[in-house]
């Protein structure tokens, strides 16, 4: 009976110590940065919560009445963008992963990725210079012929710079994100499942419906939520394209449009002073909380589904 030998400890060299400590230090910097972001935003936001129309010139009554319409506009624009982008993105992802010739697939994927590389300010310039004038006749037609539908009720905007145009620009910006993730997920579908479906006589669409889409569903959902998160925080494209009045309305085609938090900050911040700065920072904090919640939802979906998926 002898006691187990003490485990041999690895020799600690100075190089090892320096290296591992600097790695830990860098990792903790992330912690510090995020803590700093949260602290500074909260500290700067506190005065805004007690501000009134007398102390801060951009407020009418109080902070919550100011931020309410902005939150509505942010969520409404992002939801519209997601509604437009999701079907198209799934279509593109399927096209690249299962329809396009193999040789072309990677090139086509790269072309779609190029859309993601375009800076948002360029999208804004394009939206206002090309897209808005191009869709304005369509809006007029919609209001004239489908005006009975509440979303399309008039009077039509003369410039085309409505919430729908902003949502289309946002959709174009999030399509590459949703496409890239869904494409990766579709490509991971077990080939045996696909071949089994085809061997049973399924057409290509039936194979996709029975093998690819069920496998990819959690991936699609998390891609959609990530896209939503991006659309919520997108600033310049909305700030430039949308001619906002700050109203709370669901109408898509009129010149009375809600603004979004991010766009409002970008437009108001350069001229802001005093408590107004704190008010804008507080709206930024609310945007941060909303996007954080959305991203947490995406992570939760991925984590919940990954235990059951065939991917591991």
């Amino acid at each position: 009976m002898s006691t187990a030998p003490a485990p041999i400890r690895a020799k600690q060299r100075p190089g090892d110590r320096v290296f591992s400590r600097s790695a830990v230090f860098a990792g903790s910097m992330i912690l510090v940065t995020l803590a700093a972001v949260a602290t500074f935003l909260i500290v700067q936001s506190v005065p805004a919560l007690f501000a009134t129309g007398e102390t801060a010139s951009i407020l009418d009554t109080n902070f919550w009445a100011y931020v309410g319409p902005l939150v509505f506009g942010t969520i409404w624009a992002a939801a519209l963008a997601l509604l437009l982008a999701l079907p198209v993105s799934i279509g593109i992802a399927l096209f690249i992963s299962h329809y396009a010739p193999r040789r072309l697939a990677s090139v086509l994927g790269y072309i779609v990725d190029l859309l993601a590389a375009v800076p948002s300010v360029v999208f804004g310039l394009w939206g206002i210079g090309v897209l808005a004038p191009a869709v304005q006749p369509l809006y007029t037609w919609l209001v004239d012929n489908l005006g009975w539908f509440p979303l399309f009720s008039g009077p039509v905007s003369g410039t085309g710079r409505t919430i729908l145009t902003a949502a289309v620009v946002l959709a174009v910006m999030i399509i590459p994100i949703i496409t890239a993730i869904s494409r990766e997920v579709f490509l991971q579908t077990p080939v045996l499942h696909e071949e089994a479906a085809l061997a049973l006589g399924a057409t290509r669409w039936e194979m996709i419906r029975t093998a690819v889409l069920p496998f990819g569903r959690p991936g699609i959902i998390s891609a959609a939520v990530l896209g939503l998160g991006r659309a919520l925080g997108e600033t310049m494209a909305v700030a430039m394209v949308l001619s906002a009045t700050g109203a709370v309305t669901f109408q898509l085609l009129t010149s009375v449009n809600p603004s979004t938090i991010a766009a409002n900050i970008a437009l108001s911040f350069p001229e802001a002073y005093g408590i107004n700065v704190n008010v804008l920072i507080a709206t930024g904090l609310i945007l941060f909380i909303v996007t954080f919640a959305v991203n947490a939802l995406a992570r939760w979906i991925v984590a919940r589904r990954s235990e059951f998926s065939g991917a591991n």
Partner: protein
Amino acid sequence: MTTTLTPPEPRVATPVSNSLTAGKLPNGAPWMILAASLLVSAGLFGVIALSGAEFNWVGTLVVAALIYVVVITVLSRIVEGSRRSTDRFVTSLVTGAFLLAMIPLVSLTITVVTFGLARFDPEFFTYSMRSVTGEGGGALHAIVGTLLMTGTAALISIPIGLMTSIYLVEYGRGRLARGITFLVDVMTGIPSIVAGLFAYALFAIFWGPGTRTGIAGAVALAVLMIPVVVRSSEEMLRLVPNELREAAYALGVPKWLTIVKVVLPTSIAGITTGIMLSIARVIGETAPLLIAAGFTNSMNYDMTEGRMQSLPVFVYTQYANQGTPASAYLDRAWAAALTLILIVMALNLIARLVARFFAPKFGR
């Protein structure tokens, strides 16, 4: 229950020559239908154009696409049955989705190039906007500002991001590693304008409210860049086979030397690609720089003093504060947009080339 055996009805001999191709549209059918629907649609709009209106290209294509989808679905339903018809319908939808996404890309490229070339001249790259009203002037101050701020952001975020990913892959165990992974995820989701607000609030403490400096812009960009660098480098480091590390340990190589001499060289191509893509991502950021670094018409080389212009903010301010003649301001905005896109595309292209040509060769 009785079963009566009815003799099968004598089958009418159909004049089908080859049973394998029976009940199937010929191979070229979709293309022929596409051409036919284009012709019909063009004819339709041609007749409308005869009455004096302009020929409507967009309408022609949209109507042609609609005709094609309807015709091929119906035709396939008659000849091939409902299942194949659904398949053809979905195929055209999916292809249509891809083509639909190409419209903004093509339109954007054409617009930026045609409008951007008007002022894409030497003066644009050698002059600032100091005391320029109306025509002339350039974006040199914005280009310098973009390079300075993006460079500083890269200097801050590459060491932190790379070391963090090394920590997560090589050292990280337990709660701290899980926490950092989670926080990097959170950081990825920070809206860019919130990063700008953070940098503004941070530097307002040191230099008083209302100060906007280049270094604040760089910090804002670094906040956006770090998580991207961590994510991509982490992915690349995880791809390095464990056998390489074990072989190094077996030879008595210390851990830090293993990382520096074995792990990093193996994955350096992927890491470089990730870093370049992250630079390409932040170089086009407008909102945080507008908030943290402000805008100016003058050259500014000093990161710690005074406002600093950058290319994306230049595009925005030229558009937003149009003077007379407005076309001069818009032309400058488009030229800057073209410059910006060229820089981003070049970074993307170089990144892909690095990934392709310097990737480690695992084949034997």
